[in-house]
């Protein structure tokens, strides 16, 4: 399964000529690069023209000490067989970023709706941000790092006096 990484190197050279940034080749078929949030739409437009037409997922992770959310856009190209990962960071207290619906249509709309529900990110340009999985959930966005599920469940649903449930209070 040895490959010579030719196509990955061609893409990185084109990016260096056009945008002036260095990316990394993690292994065959994987290219990672990180950008600022203002350049997102320019990069996305150029990548879509280069053949990265399939949006796999939009994945968000929460970093408490840096006070930032890190968003990763996972794009796949059918003709070159390369997965391109575009990462960017936004502020955790006021999370706003542009939406990529003009390029990837309703597929992007569904992924952005899911991330709005779980992390509270506001995608500018997405007019249809309504809850997808939960119904009448009144608390904080559930996937943030400061919302500890085990404590929440122990306080609200279980009781230490019940013999069957005592095991859930030991770690």
């Amino acid at each position, binding site marked *: 399964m040895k490959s010579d990484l030719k196509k990955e190197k061609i893409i990185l050279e084109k990016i260096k000529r056009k945008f002036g940034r260095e990316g990394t080749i993690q292994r065959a078929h994987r290219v990672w690069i990180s950008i600022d949030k203002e350049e997102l739409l320019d990069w996305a437009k150029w990548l879509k023209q280069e053949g990265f037409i399939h949006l796999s997922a939009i994945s968000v992770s929460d970093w408490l000490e840096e006070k930032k959310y890190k968003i990763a856009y996972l794009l796949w190209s059918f003709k070159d067989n390369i997965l391109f990962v575009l990462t960017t960071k936004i502020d955790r207290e006021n999370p706003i970023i542009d939406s990529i619906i003009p390029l990837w249509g309703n597929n992007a709309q569904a992924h952005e709706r899911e991330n709005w529900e779980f992390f509270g990110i506001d995608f500018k340009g997405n007019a249809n941000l309504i809850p997808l999985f939960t*119904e009448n959930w009144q608390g904080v966005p559930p996937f943030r790092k400061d919302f500890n599920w085990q404590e*929440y469940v122990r306080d609200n*649903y279980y009781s230490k006096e019940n013999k069957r449930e005592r095991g859930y209070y030991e770690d």
Partner: protein
Amino acid sequence: MSVKAKKMKKLIKAIWIFNWFNSCGFCELVPLVGSRWDMERFGMIVTGTPRHADVLFIAGYQTFKSIKRAQLIYAQMAEPKAVIALGACTMTGGIYWDSYNTIKRLDDYLPITIYIPGCPPRPEAVFEACGKIFKHVGEMK
């Protein structure tokens, strides 16, 4: 014999189930309808509407969204009716005990007749549970 026992012995000769196979139980209840673990030889069939059904199978974990629909279905069934709870998640929360969205004790929401343990229980266990319902009705005074 009491009035209730007479009624139950006449009515519970064959159990009709409402077709709401949800969550993990889908994968073990659908083969029950099929040809290997044929449940029609015991008189059980699957109906499409709760108004014809005797038994509601809660086949696994429930979330807040789906327990509301289960309560509405239970209210539409006619007496006498029973609820059978499948799996470990209905007893204490099971493997998803620390999830914010699942129901921990099904007993707080619906009156349950029989619990069947397992993750997921084998089809033979479901038949034994139905057999116990028949035996319990047969011994009623």
